[in-house]
Structure formats: structure tokens, C-alpha cells
């Protein structure tokens, strides 16, 4: 299948007084139509910057895309003018942000915020756009949509605001929805509601989703395929089932082992609190060029060549890609 969106060797750097921060340093992945792709990693791994780069929302005074391409609909997004990008953004590619309070304009009512995008992109008159806004609120299951249209963000709960954000993102039938930590600020019971809603709407509308999150539980429950990032690079890419069952990169493995599990076989050992496997050390500073693999200082498998040259992202088995010189040893170790 031809990918809907293809990111190839993307590099986004920030120019700070401390030096050049290589926030995204050679990221590649593809998104198929209607697919849910998880982009996971810890703070500072570059997952949000990747999303902002795709939408060309990197503030030009601090950073820019210095290399690579982003193919979408036969065009390279990195080469488009800002006017062309504006046509695309919120129309063909839409985004939901983490913080539903700051993502909405506090002085405009909900109806206006949904309708303005419809007026701009679908060229509908205001009255029709308001109708469309009401339909969208119904779609995201907000009770009493007609009345809610006239309310302001502060009158809504966190979960409802995130529903409004989803309504705005989906009102122009985008092909791609980028959701950056859409449920991180929400309570678990509300998170479950929002994730279910997103998946249901995806089925209904055929939108492909890039879900950015640090929560491996959320990924396991929602994504078909997963891209794992570390220090601005992709370390592993695989179908969700394969990634959780047979992680091939030492970092992915470490992450999964470091997770406290409420579902782990507690019946056999009621009172024990098994030690969690730690990943020693911390993420490297991205201001220094990293010649080899970025995970070397924290990796139990690191060999000499790991520190010298960066491993390529290679297919280890069908559609399971890993970027590790010692991948074979990692797999052997797991058995």
C-alpha cells in the first residue's frame, strides 16, 4: 500500500545559546491510510518535535527542519510555502494537543471555534458551518450540543474540552490526525472514554492517526504499529503485538521491564514487591553530536562498534525494524 504520509530522514535542530540541539536526528517512518501508529519515547526523545515538524509548526526563530523529507499527497511538506501549509493544516492533517485548556481560545465560544475551521477550509457559509459544528459535537458525544455551541471553554470539564478539540480536528475530514499526548492530562476513567471515542471515529471516518505518547499502556491498547524513539532517533519499529511480545532493541526491552505491572501474576506471590528493572543513567544531552548509537552509555549489550558508528534501522523480521548492532544478541538473550 502506498503510504499516506512518509517521513524520511527528518532532522529538526534548534539553535540555542548552549549550542545546536539535535532534537530530531534522522527519523523515518510511514503511515498507511486508516492506520493507528504510536510514536513513543520518554521526555526529550523528539516525538513532539517530529509532530510539529510534520505540521511545520516549529518556531523559525528557534529551530528549523535541516534535512529530510515529509511526503504527503504527492508533495514534500518541507518545501511548501506557509500559505500552502495553512491550506493543509487543520484540513488534510489535523492535530490534537495535550493541554485541552490552552489549546482552545478562551474568548470564543465552542461553536465559533469549530465553525471557523469549516468556513475556512470547506468554504461553507457561517450558518451551515454552525450546523456542521453541532453535528460534530453530537459525533463526539457531547450532551446537549445545541446549547454547548454557545458555551466557552472554561464552562467545560477537561474531558469535554478534549472532545471539543477532537471535534475541531475532525470537522474537515482530515486524512491524518496527529494526537500529541491527547489523554495525558486526563483522569483514567476519562482517558478511557476519549481513547474509545478516537478509535470509534477512526473506524467511522477512516482517518489515520499518529498517536504520540509516553504511556506504553495506551499504545498497547490503541495502536496497530509502534515507532519507538530515543534521543531524536528511531530505535525500533514494529507491529504492536510483536513489539510487546518480542522487543528487539535493548531500550524498548528496558522500558517494558521498568514498567510496574498491575496485571502481572500477583496470585502466586501476594506479598512480594519484585524489584523493577532499572535503565541506569539518563538520556544524553542532545547538544553534542553522538557518533555511534545514542543508547550506548545505558546499554547492557553495548560493544565497541556501538559507540563508533550509528546502527541503521534494518528489518529484523517481517515489518519489524530495529536499529541495533547487537540485535541478534538481544534476541538470543531473551530466549
Amino acid at each position: 500500500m502506498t503510504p499516506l504520509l512518509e517521513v524520511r530522514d527528518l532532522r529538526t535542530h534548534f539553535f540555542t545559546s548552549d549550542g545546536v540541539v539535535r532534537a530530531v536526528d534522522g527519523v523515518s517512518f510511514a503511515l498507511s491510510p486508516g492506520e493507528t501508529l504510536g510514536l513513543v519515547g520518554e521526555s526529550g526523545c523528539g516525538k513532539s518535535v517530529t509532530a510539529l515538524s510534520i505540521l511545520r509548526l516549529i518556531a523559525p526563530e528557534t529551530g528549523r527542519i535541516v534535512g529530510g523529507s515529509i511526503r504527503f499527497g504527492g508533495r514534500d511538506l518541507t518545501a511548501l510555502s506557509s500559505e500552502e501549509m495553512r491550506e493543509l493544516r487543520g484540513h488534510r492533517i489535523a492535530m490534537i494537543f495535550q493541554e485541552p485548556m490552552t489549546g482552545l481560545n478562551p474568548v470564543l465560544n465552542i461553536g465559533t471555534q469549530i465553525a471557523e475551521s469549516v468556513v475556512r477550509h470547506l468554504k461553507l457559509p457561517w450558518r451551515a458551518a454552525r450546523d456542521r459544528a453541532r453535528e460534530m459535537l453530537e459525533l463526539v458525544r457531547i450532551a446537549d450540543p445545541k446549547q454547548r455551541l454557545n458555551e466557552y471553554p472554561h464552562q467545560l470539564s477537561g474531558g469535554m474540552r478534549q472532545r471539543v478539540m477532537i471535534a475541531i480536528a475532525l470537522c474537515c475530514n482530515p486524512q491524518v490526525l496527529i494526537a500529541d499526548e491527547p489523554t495525558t492530562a486526563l483522569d483514567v476513567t476519562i482517558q478511557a472514554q476519549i481513547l474509545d471515542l478516537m478509535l470509534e471515529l477512526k473506524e467511522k471516518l477512516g482517518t489515520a492517526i499518529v498517536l504520540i505518547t509516553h504511556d506504553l499502556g495506551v499504545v498497547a491498547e490503541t495502536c496497530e504499529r509502534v515507532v519507538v524513539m530515543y534521543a531524536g532517533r528511531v530505535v525500533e519499529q514494529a507491529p504492536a503485538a510483536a513489539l510487546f511480545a518480542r522487543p528487539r532493541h535493548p531500550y524498548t526491552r528496558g522500558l517494558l521491564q521498568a514498567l510496574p505491572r498491575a496485571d502481572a501474576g500477583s496470585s502466586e506471590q501476594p506479598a512480594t514487591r519484585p524489584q523493577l528493572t532499572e535503565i541506569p543513567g539518563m538520556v544524553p544531552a542532545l547538544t553534542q553530536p553522538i557518533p555511534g548509537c545514542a543508547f550506548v552509555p545505558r546499554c547492557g549489550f553495548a560493544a565497541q562498534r556501538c559507540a563508533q558508528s550509528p546502527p541503521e534501522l534494518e528489518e529484523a523480521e517481517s515489518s519489524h525494524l530495529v536499529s541495533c548492532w547487537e540485535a541478534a544478541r538481544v534476541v538470543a538473550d531473551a530466549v
Partner: protein
Amino acid sequence: MSAPVSLEVQDLTKHFPVRGGLLQRQRGVVRAVDGVSFSIARGETLGLVGESGCGKTTVSRMVVKLIEPTAGRIRLGGVDVTGLSPAAMWEHRRRVQIVFQDPYSSLNPRLTAGTIVGEPLENFRLATGREKDRRVADLFTRVGLRPESMHRYAHEFSGGQRQRLGIAKALSVNPDLIVADEPVSALDVSVRAQVLNLMIALQEELKLAYLFVSHDLAVVHHVSHRIAVMYLGRIVELADKRALFESPLHPYTEALLAAAPVPDPARRRKKRLILEGDVPSPMRPPSGCRFHTRCPHADAACRVKDPPLLEVAPGRYVACLKRPAGGGGAPAPGLLQGAP
């Protein structure tokens, strides 16, 4: 049952007045915590879970006496400290320390790490001068920091290291009880494991009692011996962690467990219980059982009758009209002891 009780709270209640209008008259109260009782034994961790606004942070603030309860009692190591003046509290304050969620804002940026960790030692006149420095260096080693880093400032440490500083500071006065309010919520997974392992190791070594407050069920499950689930200012269920996770009795506990994402794609998309709607405002809690507005099992009685927290099996407490106890159930006494 034999371990001595470190903390005991009984009918703890906190109502915050809401003022408004021209004359700032009181317009209502937020019933943040409404009659909460539990106890923690020496060496035991009680996990306190619930969603935002359920009152879990207010409970933790009252336990360390950062705020005064509206009603109820707090006993630290058998001593009733409710309503003690700050001066009278002074000699008891050493017993209970707190570790905050945000390792970025809870450390003074103008002080060196060594000063921060050593400050309680001076405040409680436990050590000064060289002796203090020696004890601070010990504390650094104990929490996995290099003693040489004593002279650095908070911003020079990573998030995980700052949380270690917070723990070292809490440990400095040899407390019996540490209240940890979302201590790992701001940390990444790989670092979170380091801090949780450290907290458990310290507990086992020093026989500390923990009140571990968190919204993250997997984390609470990992560190706790017993778990209390709060909803709108009340404890709705309290049990041994295994019992709670394997056979939750309260519908809210059940919903919380069902909603928590599990990192295993094979278990995905079972038809799960998803709660409708939002948590009601604690200013106007629903009549009867506070959970009835979202409860799939609620009936007419639930809208009227407020269920008390009853002991339905040894050490298992639940507040739900739909879960009658075998033999009626005994009302929860203030002292809910469980073996750690």
C-alpha cells in the same frame, strides 16, 4: 496485626469555604475530604488512589499538618496531634515528612543540594557543622547520589536526581512516616523504576511507613501493601492490594481497574466497563451514594442512602449498598489494621 501503628486518622474531614460576591460572604463549602479513616502500620505502605479532586492530596496535606482538618483526629505513633499549635507540634513534626510530586518546584533554587538536605537537621537541632556535613554525605550515598554533588544547585540535577534529593531531605530527620504525594508522576518510565526501587529498599531497611498517594494504579499496586480508593472525598474501598486488584468490590474500583491501560496488546479491546460522564463537583456532591450518578448498578436506594464503609471480610472495607456484607458487616472502626 502486631506491628505498631505509625499513623491513624479517624473521620478526617476538610471543608474549604467558598467565598464570593461583594462582601466575600461564604457561599458554600467544598467537601474535599468527608470522613476518612485509615491507619498505617510501621513498615507498611498504604496506597491512596483516586482521580483528580477526590481529596487524596488534601488528606496527605492534613496528615503532615500543612492544613488543619475541619473535623476528625490524627494520631502519629499513638500521639494525638490534631489541633496542636505549631510550637506544640514541633517535637512531633520530625516523625512525619513529605515528598512532593514536582521535583522542579519543591527545591529552593538558591540553595545548594547539601544545604537543602541538611536544613531539617539544623531545624531540629540534630546536627550542625562537620557532623551535619557527614550526615548529609551519608544521606546522599543512601539515595544513590554522589556526596561530591552536595555543592551543586537543584537545577544541575535531573528530574530523577531531584526526587532523590527530596527523599534524602525527608529521611534526614529519621521519620517514622513518609507521605509521598505522586512522587514519581513527573518522572519518565526508566527513571521512575529507579525511584520506586529506592523507596522500597529504604522502607525495608528503615521500617518506614508510607502513605503513597497516586493516580497511577500500576505504580500503587507495585509499592503498596494495602490500598484505599477515594471518590469525592470518601474512601469507597480499602483492602489488601491483591484482594483489591483480583476481586474489586466497589463498582468505582472496578471501573478504575478496567480503565487503566495495560501494556499488553493481547488483552486489548475486551468489552470494558467505561464510566459515563464526569466526577460531580465536590461543592454539590450527589445525594445518597456519591457515586450513584455514574454507577451502572445504582438504583433508587442508592440515590437516597449514603452507604457507610463496612468491613465485609477481615481487612476488607467497602462502601456500597449493592455489596451487602455476609452477616451484615461491622462498621469500620477508626483503626483499620492490616499486617504489612
